[in-house]
């Protein structure tokens, strides 16, 4: 069986899920093992349909749980081919054990995580609780802000993850429903160009090379475990960013679309800025422009790479700002938000002594409106005008009932 190419228009109207499914098709993923969960399901349905229609030559394995999905992906990746799947929320949570096993075995796997809240209470809508649950699991994590990004970043993910110097699995995040189910114009690549960018899969230590048997997933105790984990961490910290940057550069040459590890918007002379992820980046950019018309020098920093966290690029982007808001779309449960923490860590030993406030917003799919962001930029400006932080360190945006603020 050979697969057929698909003719695409230069611009197709796709939602984020379908965009990701098309990227899996164009990358000619060998094995997708999956279990359905809203809102990520259409990604694997798309791959399954492409397989049924002869546009992919791969195997679609519809397993009995997300844990099994990642288990099969790990076995398939160790066997030596291109592997991907998708999940959200509870499914992601069920996968967590295997996420560590995939990265610890240094296996290239691409996981599309369509971000969704974690129960209880049960909720199918978007927030970043699942994204943050995976943040110490040793995976590279890229964040898409819109369907176009969801399409493009999958190619980057395969390219970086499968690089023999990297050999770490990679997640591509997109916001549940807001990106996954919102159709927009997506600039496409031809099948040949897309496949040319990700390239043929090059196996390493593959189990199906019978002349060179390999042992995967060994036991190490106190005599070796630390070395393995430290090496893995070192590679994530030192090798991945340059590879992502190189992939972004090559992707720009191919498509004309430019991605940055940290996406700066109006940051050259900004006094106040918002740091955020996902779909809120676009909203924040619009509001920042409006604030400038009102005389507030506002900017936005969007994080594109969540792991490894771009500490240096963040410090560079935030040089000179006076007040920063870190926006976290997950309930931090007992501490400050994840972005607040990371940004504080990025700035601590630098000359930037900006005031930093943490905001929790949008849990379970709650809207972040322009009005929320206007008020927020004004609060930051008020802090600058007062010469000190006059607002609480941690606030919840738009939650009903008494205002929730701490510290």
């Amino acid at each position, binding site marked *: 069986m050979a697969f057929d190419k698909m003719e695409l228009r230069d611009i197709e109207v796709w939602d984020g899920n379908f965009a990701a499914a098309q990227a899996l098709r164009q990358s000619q993923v*060998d*094995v997708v093992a999956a279990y359905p969960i809203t809102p990520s399901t259409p990604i694997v349905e798309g791959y399954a349909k492409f397989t049924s229609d002869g546009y992919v030559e791969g195997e679609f394995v519809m397993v009995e749980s997300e844990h099994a999905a990642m288990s099969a992906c790990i076995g398939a990746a160790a*066997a030596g081919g291109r592997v991907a799947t998708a999940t959200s929320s509870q499914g992601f949570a069920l996968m967590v054990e295997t996420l560590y096993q995939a990265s610890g075995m240094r296996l290239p796997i691409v996981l599309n995580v369509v971000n969704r809240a974690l129960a209880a209470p049960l909720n199918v809508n978007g927030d970043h609780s699942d994204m943050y649950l995976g943040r110490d699991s040793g995976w590279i994590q890229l964040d898409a802000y819109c369907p176009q990004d969801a399409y493009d970043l999958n190619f980057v993910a395969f390219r970086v993850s499968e690089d023999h110097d990297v050999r770490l699995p990679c997640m591509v995040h997109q916001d549940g429903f807001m990106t996954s189910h919102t159709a927009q114009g997506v600039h496409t690549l031809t099948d040949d160009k897309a496949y040319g960018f990700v390239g043929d899969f090059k196996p390493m230590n593959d189990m199906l090379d019978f002349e060179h048997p390999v042992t995967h997933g060994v*036991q190490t105790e106190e005599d070796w475990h630390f070395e393995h984990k430290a090496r893995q961490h070192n590679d994530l910290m030192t090798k991945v960013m340059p590879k992502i940057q190189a992939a972004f550069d090559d992707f720009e040459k191919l498509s004309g679309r430019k991605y940055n590890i940290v996406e700066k918007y109006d940051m050259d002379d900004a006094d106040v800025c918002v740091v955020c992820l996902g779909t809120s980046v676009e909203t924040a950019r619009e509001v920042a422009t409006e604030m400038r018309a009102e005389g507030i020098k506002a900017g936005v920093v969007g994080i594109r790479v969540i792991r490894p966290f771009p500490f240096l690029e963040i410090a560079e982007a935030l040089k000179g700002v006076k007040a920063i808001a870190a926006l976290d779309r997950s309930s931090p449960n007992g501490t400050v938000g994840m972005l607040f923490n990371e940004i504080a860590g990025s700035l601590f030993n630098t000359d930037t002594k900006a005031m930093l406030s943490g905001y929790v917003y949008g849990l379970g799919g709650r809207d972040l409106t322009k009005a929320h962001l206007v008020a927020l930029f004004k609060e930051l400006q008020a802090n600058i005008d007062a010469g000190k932080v006059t607002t609480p360190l941690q606030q919840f945006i738009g939650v009903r009932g008494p205002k929730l603020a701490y510290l």
Partner: protein
Amino acid sequence: MSEMKKIKNLKEFSTSADRFEGANLLCPGCAHSIIVREVLNATNDDLVLSASTGCLEVCTAVYPYTSWDASWIHIGFENSSTAVAGAESMYKVLKRKNRLKQPERNPKFVSFAGDGASYDIGFQWISGCMERGHNIMHVVLDNEVYANTGGQRSSSTPIGSSATTSPAGRVSYGEKKNKKDLMGIMAAHGIPYAAQVAPNKWKDMVKKIQHGFSVDGPVFINAVSPCTTEWKFDPKDTMHLTDLATDSLVFPLYEIIDGHELNITYRPKNVVPVEEYLAAQGRFKHLFKDEYKYLIKEWQERVDAQWAYLQRREEARV
């Protein structure tokens, strides 16, 4: 299909391949290693292997060493079956795409797991693999206990056995539940082949493993694996214990083809009383107190009933 390996005698069999090295950390007398060798030595085909977390895994792949001279993977406690099923899926794709490095090879995919990893935590994963029809063999090293973590009960632990989480004590005779019938459950998936094997009956084992490798689709093998440490017997007695298990019919040897056709493959000439089997193991010692003697009687009745049932099913040919 590749030609089946011909084996003349035990000596030749035991030295006929070295894909599982004698150098490992399993207890002296552990039946796990004997069973693994027998399974691997039954074929000359290339192998892709997996193991669940458990004694076999922690004792054979301790970095920077490995006892395995065939590709082998361990992911977690529950998913050895799915790990090897993932590799089998990749094999199918790469064969179709002409990307195999040695396209002429015809590998077999085997996962090994303890009873804990199969009867309990890995149950769902195995069931999924069976239902989906992966071309894999799942082999249970059934020592009827969580040995690696120090002897907790599993749903394979037989009634009256003293395990650390169902200990015999002043007011308890230990495990209260009967062993789960995993063979029956697995056969009910309609898989092409399910069989119980024992390391002492090596010819029967070879036949069954070779049959398993010859069919297209999932195969389930349940192997009795006496554990010197948890069953509490002298390491030199492993084969004696296995003989008692098969000859008392506590662990009957049979196969189920295509989910229904049952064949008994070993009929002991002299059936040993169950009492002898129980008496040989420390885990049943307390059953010989007067107040628990009735349990030994019940044991015998249960084994007799099970044997009668297997024979009826065999005769019925349904």
